[in-house]
Every structure is written in structure tokens, then in C-alpha cells.
């Protein structure tokens, strides 16, 4: 059954793959070791986006890296990862053991840097997500890659030439008009758009009177950002027709349903898994029940809140 609910779950399609759940784990939430060790119940997810990899290994940021805030968290991990060489030699072969499909996520700051990932082009990958929006590594003094329209257009265009697989652009919510950026990546040839990454925030420790994070700015995620993320998904859906990977603060079935209704084809559950490792289980069950009770398919839900005002331009 396409996009339908069955007692076993929901079937839907994304980039030519049938998925058994509309929920997915966004990038950076869990590493391959923990995925394979069964730290999360993967049967609740349609797929997982792997932790972003960089060309060279990165230790990540110094100082405090995670911080609890009311209804959310902040992080300054700084893309700690083992780099492309280890990914190709050691991680990739182990991924065969994953019970759900995966997307590879790469961090790219320039067209030149993108060429360094050409070894991925030779693989039979389902999809690659280009993380253009990590707030914890700076592009230049002007801000994030995802805040530079010309640059992301060039990078996605180059990625389109380099890779045969599906390409997803992960955008930053910290831009004035995210739909403009979505239009740019769509016109450059992206197959999907991930909306969005963490919001940039600052925390100050009043006891020490210093910023909590060494780099001052960190990424805000969790329920606190849900309605902000929902607005970004809403705006992007009205502008481009690419599948949207809706991400940001989803913490309950209503939030997941709202994300879909705003236009998300699939819904990421990130930080909430730190609140509850098995948090996706109840969400999926309630989403299935909602669809059954209302006689709807998942496909019918996607963008439904736009009603007649939907206005696609891409």
C-alpha cells in the first residue's frame, strides 16, 4: 500500500525507496557504533541520516558541548568525526549490518572541498545530504555556508554533477527567507531539502558571568524550536515542490502530524531521543492510529494544512 497506514505501520516512498515509517533520525543524533549496538529501536524509523563527515578527522569543539535548556538543548559538538578515510575503510563496510536505509551526510564549505568527497561518487548510495548549515563550524566571518545563496547554489550544482545518487540540501533556519534558499537549491538540482538544522543561540552562566560555550554560539534544538521549524517547513512547502525532510523539535505525535501537514514528506526525531531513547515508538503508534481513525494515507497528510492556498513555484 503506497503512503497508506496498515496495522504494522505506514508505507511511504522517498527517492525511489519504500520506507516503513515516515519518521527518521536526523544527522548527528547517533553514531554508527550506537546504531549497530541497538541503542535505539530502529524499527520505528524509515531511515537514518548518518553523522556528518568531513574530509579530515575532527576532534570537535573544546569546552562544554551540550547544555540543557527549558524544553530543549544546546550543542556545540563541532562535527566531531573520523573523516573520510576512516569512513570509507572502516565505517562503510559495517553499514551493511544496518536494518534500515541510511543517507550519508557531508559537510561542505566550497566547490573545491566537495571534490574531496569524489570517492563517494563511486558508491551505490541511496542519497547524500549536504550539511550546509552546521552552526558549530564557521564558514567565514559572514556566517554559515547556508547563509550564502551564491555559494550553496554553486555547491549543489557541483554536487549534482559529481553524484549520481539523490541529493538533499540541509538548510539553516537562521536566514530571513528560507524559501528563497530552498528555491536556489531546487534550481541547482537538489532532489530534496532538509528543513532545518539547529537555530543559533547563546547561553551565559550567570555564576561565572561567562558564555557557557567556548565558541559562544551553539545550536538550539528540541521542543523549544518546534513551532519555529514548522514555520520554515510551511514556507518552503509553499515555494518548492521537492520532498521536504522536516526537522526541528518534534516530540509527540501531534508535532509529527503537524510537520507533515505543513509539508514535510518525512519527519525527523532528533534531540527528543536524548530525552527518551524509545521516544519514537509512541509517536509512530499514534500517527498510525490517527491515519486509521481518519481514513487517511500519509501521502494525503503531506501539506494538507495548506488547503487551497498552496502555490507551488518550483
Amino acid at each position, binding site marked *: 500500500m503506497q503512503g497508506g497506514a496498515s496495522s504494522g505501520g505506514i508505507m511511504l516512498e522517498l527517492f525511489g525507496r519504500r520506507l516503513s515509517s515516515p519518521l527518521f533520525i536526523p544527522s*548527528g543524533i547517533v553514531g554508527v557504533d550506537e546504531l549497530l549496538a541497538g541503542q535505539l529501536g530502529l524499527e520505528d524509523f524509515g531511515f537514518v541520516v548518518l553523522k556528518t563527515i568531513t574530509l579530515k578527522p575532527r576532534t570537535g569543539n573544546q569546552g562544554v558541548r551540550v547544555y*540543557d535548556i527549558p524544553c530543549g538543548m544546546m550543542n556545540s559538538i563541532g562535527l566531531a568525526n573520523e573523516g573520510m578515510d576512516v569512513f570509507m575503510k572502516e565505517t562503510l563496510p559495517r553499514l551493511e549490518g544496518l536494518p534500515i536505509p541510511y543517507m550519508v551526510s557531508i559537510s561542505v564549505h566550497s566547490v573545491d572541498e566537495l571534490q574531496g568527497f569524489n570517492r563517494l561518487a563511486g558508491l551505490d548510495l541511496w542519497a547524500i545530504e549536504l550539511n550546509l548549515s552546521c552552526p558549530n563550524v564557521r564558514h567565514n566571518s559572514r556566517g554559515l555556508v547556508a547563509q550564502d545563496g551564491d555559494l550553496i547554489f554553486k555547491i549543489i550544482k557541483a554536487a549534482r554533477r559529481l553524484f549520481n545518487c539523490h541529493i538533499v540540501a540541509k538548510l539553516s533556519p537562521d536566514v530571513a527567507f528560507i524559501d528563497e534558499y530552498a528555491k536556489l537549491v531546487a534550481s541547482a538540482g537538489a532532489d530534496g531539502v532538509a528543513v532545518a538544522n539547529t537555530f543559533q543561540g547563546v547561553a551565559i552562566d550567570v555564576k561565572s558571568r561567562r558564555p557557557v560555550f567556548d565558541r559562544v554560539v551553539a545550536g538550539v534544538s528540541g521542543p523549544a524550536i518546534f513551532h519555529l521549524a514548522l514555520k520554515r517547513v510551511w514556507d518552503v512547502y509553499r515555494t518548492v515542490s521537492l520532498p521536504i525532510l522536516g526537522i526541528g523539535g518534534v516530540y509527540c505525535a501531534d508535532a509529527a502530524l503537524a510537520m507533515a501537514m505543513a509539508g514535510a514528506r518525512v519527519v525527523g526525531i532528533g534531540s527528543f531521543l536524548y530525552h527518551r531513547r524509545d521516544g519514537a515508538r509512541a509517536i509512530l503508534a499514534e500517527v498510525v492510529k490517527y491515519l486509521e481513525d481518519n481514513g487517511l494515507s500519509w501521502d494525503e497528510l503531506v501539506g494538507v494544512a495548506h488547503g487551497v492556498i498552496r502555490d507551488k513555484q518550483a
Partner: protein
Amino acid sequence: MGLGLKVSERQIAEGLILLSVEYDATTILPGQFFQLRPVDRMDIFLARPISVFSYNGRKLSFLIRLKGRGTYAISTADCLFLDGPFGNGFKLYPSRKALLVAGGMGLAPLYFLADQLKKTTIDFDFIWGVRDGTYVDAIKRLGLVIEARIVSEDGSTGEAGIVSDFIDEYDFDICYVCGPIPMMETVLGRLKEKKGSGVIAQFSLEANMGCGWGGCKGCYVEFDGRGIYVCREGPVVEVLC
């Protein structure tokens, strides 16, 4: 994957709280910790890492210093959400003589370790360093007996001094340490001065945690020139001095 448990016992004494829940799910090693938060409260989003203070197969207890938002919320919760136990825990060496060195609230995991060591033939000494008498008084009011030599920086309780100054008085070949990082670094320095002694030192480290199970990469610290993820590779690191 975590479970909600009713708080079965709760005692508070000036800045410290002793909490117990009924728990019989698994064996727990000294030095392991749980991720704790109040249930059903989204405003305490991330759980707090708390060491096991005591466990007898039925009752699981935590000794918690009230520090900020999270620990205050935990202290008043009727029901706690627990995930764990996480981390490697201390490793026991049956043929060795042990010294336990606690600093401040580093007491919690070493109290549990001492309790376990008593059940073995391993001989050990225990020193607890505090800044002043506050924790010591609070512990007494909680009705707990700490069989440790107490050393206070301001001399208001026990002997006056810094805990690391006392370790030379002991004869040991394994040293278990938990306390603030600067204190542990000083102890490590002292142990290394006796280089070649063959002393094994185990330090229980602290870091802010996002998940407790290895997912977030948030708990990275560097200690003795090594970078570790505290929840997965620690919290206990071993150094051969």
C-alpha cells in the same frame, strides 16, 4: 530504554539529597551511573548523570548535590525517569591494596565502591576531602556513616589540609579517585612523582551529558593527554603511573 520509577525514599539535608527507588533490573558496578530526570516534564529536557551511591539488588540510591535547575527538579519529583546503568565502572584488582580518594561529591561512587570492596578480601583505605564542614554535617543528618578519613581545606572538620597531600602516607598499588578535575589532576601528578611505582590509578571523570549512551558526542573531555567520551569510554579512566 529507560523507565519511570516512584521515589520510595527521600531525605534532604542542606544542599544534599538522598533518593531511593525500587529497582531490580540488573547488576550494577561501582562507578556506573544513571541518567535521571523528573518524569513527564519537558522543561528538564536532558537527564542528569548521577552515580550509583548504593544498591543492594532491590533498593537503588543516589546522593545528589543540589546544584542547579536539574538537580532541584529531581529533588522534588515524586517519580523519576531513569536510563542506564551506563559507563564502565571501576575495575577491581583482587591482589592489590587500594586507596580511595574522594573530593566533594566525588564521594558518591567511591562510597559504593567501598561498600563492594568490604565484601571482598581487598584491603583498602579511604580519604574524603571537602572544602568545609557543609557536606560532612549534611551526611550526618542523612544518617549516613562514612568510614573515611576526613580532610577539610578550612580545617573546620576532620584534619586540615588538601586531600592530595595525604596520599603519601598510605601504602597502596591501586588508587581510585573521584572529584573535581583540578583535584584529580593534582592527585595524578602526585602519583606520577612516584614514577615506576606500578601504581594503577582509576579516575572517574565528569562531563555535561546529552544522552549517556554514546549518541551525542557531547561528553568529550581530555584527561592526562587523552581525549575520551565520558559516557561510553568512561567515566572511569585508568592510568598506569
